[in-house]
C-alpha cells in the first residue's frame, strides 16, 4: 500500500504566506472600513458631505502677504494656492540661504584654526539642540515684535527695522532687463565655448593656454558691450523709505516671514554643516595624501580630489535636510505667516471641512517631497561613481 505524506495546509510553505497576507489585508481593510464609516457617519450628523465643492465658495478673509493678487472675494481654492506659493517661497529662499551658511559653518568646523572650529562647534550645538519652534518664538516674540514702531524705525544703511517688518532694497525689472538677460546668456555660452576649446588645446599641446582667464575675460567683454548698448544696469534697485504708516519701495519682510525664515535657515544650517563635515571627512585620507604626493596645491586638491568624492557622501543626507526644511516651514502657522498649513487652518475653521483640507495639505507636502527627492536622485545618479 502506498502511503502519501501530506502536509497539513497550516504548515504548507505555499499556502501559509498567502493565508497570512489575506488575514493581514482583511484586518487592515476592516479597520479602515470601521474608521471611515464612523467618520462619514459623524460628518453626516453635523450635516457635512465629503467633497471639494467648497473650494469654489468665496473665502471672505484677507491674506496679508501674497505673491499673486488675492482679495476677500476670491475663492477658497485661490486662497490655498496662495498658501502653497508662500510655502514655496520660504522653502526656496530658505534652501539657498541655509546651504550657504551650512557650507560655511561645516568648513569652519574643519578649520585648523582652533578658535574658528570651536566657534562653529558651539554654533552647531546651541542651535541644533534647541527646538525649532522655540527659536521661531524667540525671533518673533522677543526680537522682531519689540522692534520700534514704524515711525521710529531703526535705519541700518538702506535697511529699515520696525515692528511692521524689515524693509530691504529690492530690484525691479525694466524695459532693458530682457536685453541684459540675453547678453548674460550669450556671454556665458561664449565663455564656456572658449574654456572648452582652450582646455582641449592645452591638454593636446601641453602648453599653457589660460582657458579659465580667457573665459572670464570674454564674459566681461560681452557684459561691457551690453552695458554700452543699453546704457542702464540690468535692474533698477529700489531703496525703501518710510511713508506714513508703511514702507514705500524695496521689499518688506513681515515679522512672521522674517522669524520663520531666520530660524529655519539657522536651524537647518547646523544639520547641513554636520553633513558637509562628515562628507569631507569621509574622503579617505589616502586620497589626500596621494594628491599631495602628486604635487597638487591644496586648492586643487580640494577642487579635484576631495570635493568630487565628498559630494557623493553628502548628497543623500543633504536631500533629507532639504526635505526637512520644506516640512518644517509648516511651523509658520505658529507666527501667523500664511503658508499652506496656516491658510488651511483658517479654511478649516470657516468651513469645518477638516478631512478635505487636511487631505489637501498632505497631498501638497507629499508632492513637494516627491519632487525634491526625484530631483536629488537625478543629481545623485550623475555624480555617483561609475564602477567598472
Amino acid at each position, binding site marked *: 500500500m502506498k502511503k502519501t505524506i501530506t502536509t497539513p495546509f497550516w504548515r504548507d510553505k505555499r499556502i501559509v504566506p498567502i493565508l497570512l497576507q489575506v488575514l493581514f489585508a482583511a484586518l487592515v481593510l476592516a479597520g479602515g472600513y470601521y474608521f471611515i464609516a464612523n467618520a462619514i457617519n459623524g460628518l453626516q450628523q453635523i450635516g457635512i458631505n465629503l467633497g471639494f465643492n467648497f473650494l469654489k465658495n468665496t473665502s471672505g478673509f484677507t491674506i496679508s502677504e501674497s505673491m499673486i493678487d488675492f482679495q476677500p472675494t476670491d475663492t477658497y481654492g485661490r486662497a490655498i494656492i496662495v498658501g502653497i506659493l508662500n510655502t514655496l517661497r520660504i522653502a526656496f529662499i530658505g534652501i539657498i540661504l541655509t546651504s550657504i551658511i551650512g557650507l560655511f559653518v561645516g568648513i569652519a568646523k574643519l578649520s585648523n584654526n582652533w578658535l574658528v572650529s570651536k566657534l562653529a562647534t558651539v554654533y552647531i550645538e546651541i542651535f541644533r539642540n534647541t527646538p525649532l519652534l522655540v527659536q521661531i518664538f524667540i525671533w518673533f516674540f522677543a526680537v522682531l515684535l519689540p522692534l520700534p514702531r514704524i515711525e521710529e524705525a531703526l535705519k541700518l544703511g538702506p535697511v529699515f527695522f520696525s515692528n511692521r517688518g524689515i524693509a530691504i532694497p529690492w530690484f525691479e525689472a525694466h524695459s532693458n532687463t530682457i536685453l541684459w538677460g540675453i547678453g548674460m546668456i550669450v556671454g556665458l555660452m561664449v565663455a564656456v565655448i572658449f574654456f572648452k576649446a582652450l582646455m582641449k588645446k592645452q591638454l593636446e599641446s601641453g602648453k599653457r593656454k589660460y582657458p579659465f582667464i580667457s573665459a572670464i575675460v570674454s564674459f566681461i567683454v560681452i557684459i561691457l558691450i551690453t552695458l554700452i548698448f543699453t546704457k542702464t544696469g540690468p535692474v533698477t534697485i529700489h531703496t525703501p523709505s518710510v511713508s506714513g504708516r508703511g514702507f514705500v519701495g524695496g521689499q518688506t519682510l513681515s515679522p512672521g516671514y522674517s522669524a520663520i525664515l531666520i530660524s529655519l535657515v539657522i536651524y537647518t544650517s547646523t544639520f547641513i554643516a554636520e553633513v558637509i563635515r562628515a562628507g569631507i571627512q569621509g574622503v579617505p585620507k589616502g586620497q589626500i595624501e596621494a594628491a599631495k604626493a602628486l604635487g597638487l596645491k591644496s586648492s586643487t586638491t580640494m577642487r579635484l580630489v576631495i570635493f568630487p568624492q565628498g559630494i557623493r557622501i553628502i548628497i543623500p543626507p543633504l536631500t533629507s535636510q532639504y526635505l526637512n526644511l520644506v516640512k518644517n516651514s509648516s511651523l509658520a502657522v505658529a507666527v501667523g505667516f500664511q503658508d499652506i498649513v496656516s491658510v488651511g487652518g483658517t479654511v478649516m475653521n470657516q468651513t469645518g471641512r477638516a478631512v478635505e483640507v487636511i487631505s489637501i495639505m498632505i497631498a501638497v*507636502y507629499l508632492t513637494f517631497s516627491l519632487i525634491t527627492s526625484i530631483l536629488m536622485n537625478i543629481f545623485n545618479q550623475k555624480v555617483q561613481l561609475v564602477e567598472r
Partner: protein
Amino acid sequence: MEEMKLEANKELNILKRSSSQIGSLQWLKKNLFSSWSNVLLTIISAVVTGYILFNTFQFIFTADWSVIAVNFRLLMIGQFPVAEIWRVWTILGVLTVLLGLSWGLWKGSMAHVAVSIGAIMLIMVAMPFIQMSTRLILGGNIVLLLLTFFIGTKLPKLKIPVIAVWLLYIPLTIFILNGFGVLAPVSSNIWGGFLLTLLIASVAIVISFPIGLLLALGRRSSLPVIKYFCVIYIEFIRGIPLITVLFIGQLMIPLFLGSGVEISNVLRAMIGMTLFSAAYLAENIRGGLQSLPRGQYEAAQALGLNKTYMMTFVILPQAIRAVIPACVGQFISIFKDTSLVAIVSLTDLLGMGQKLVANPEFLGKQMEVFVFVGFVYFIFCYLMSHVSRRLEVSLGAGHR
C-alpha cells in the same frame, strides 16, 4: 643604582616640563597663528566671540528673571493641583532610585545620565527662588541617588528587577498621575509644563520603538501585501510635516473613533507623536538590518533556526545594537518635536511659556521666558546627544 634612576627621573621630569611649556606655545602657534591668513581669522573670530560673550553675559545679568522665579512651578508641572503634588515627587523619587541603582549596576553611560540629573537637581536646590520644602525634597533625592548608587555597586543581583521596574516605569507614572479610580483623578487636561513635555516624549519613544521595529521588519518582509503596507505607511508619514500629523490626531481621530469614544487632547497628541516617530524609527532600524552581512542570515539558516528564532536570537540583537546611537538621535528629535503640541493648544513647557507671555502681568518678558524654555530643552538634548556619542564609542559602532 637607585640614585642614578632618581637622577634619570629628574631629568625626564625637566624634559617633560619644558616640553609642555614649549608645547603650549607651539600649540598656540600651530592652532591659532600658523600663517598670516590664520592670524587674521583668529583676530576676527576673537572679536566676534568677545562681542557675543559680552552681550550674552550682559543679557544674563541685566534681564529680569523674576518672571521665571514666580512661575517656576507652572513651567515645570503646569496646573497640577498643589494638594496632589506628592504624586509628582513620588515618581521623581522612583526615577531617582532607578537611576541610582542603574548607575551602580552598569556604570558607563548610565553614570553620565545619573550624574547630570543629580547636577540639575543640585543647581535647582541652589536657585534662590525655590521654596524650602522643595529644596529639602530635591536634596533628599540627591542623597537617595548616591545611596542607591552604593547599593547598586554592592548588589549586582538587582539587575533583572531594575530592568523590570524601568519597563513598568511609564505605565506606573501615568497611573500615579492620573489616579484611575484608586487615587483622586487628576484629568490629563490639566497636565502641563515640563512634566507634560517629558510624558509625551517618553510615551512616544517607548511605544513607537516596538511599532517601528515591526514596520522595519515588515518593510523587509517577502510577503508583498505586508511589505507594501509598511512602505506606504513609512513613506507617507515621512513625507508630511509633524504638524499635519498632529492636526490629524486632534481633528480626525475623534471622527474616526465615532461618538462613543472620548479621548483627551493629551492622549491624541501622544497618538500623533507615536505614529509619527514610529515611521522614522523604522527607517533607522532598517538601516541596522541592512548593515548586517548576509553571512549572519545564512549562518542562522545553516544552524537550522526558523525565521522567528533567527530574528530574535541572531539578527535583531546585532541590528539594534548597531542602530542605538542613531535611535538616540531620533529620540532627541522626538523630544524637541514635542514642543509642537503647543500649536494644538496644549500647555507643555513651550505652551506654558506662551501663556505666560500673553499674560499682561509679564509684558515685555518674552526674551526671558523663551530663553529659559529653550535652555531647558537644550540641557536635555545636549545631555542625550552626549550620551549617544559615548554609546557610539562604547558600542564600537563607529569603528566598523
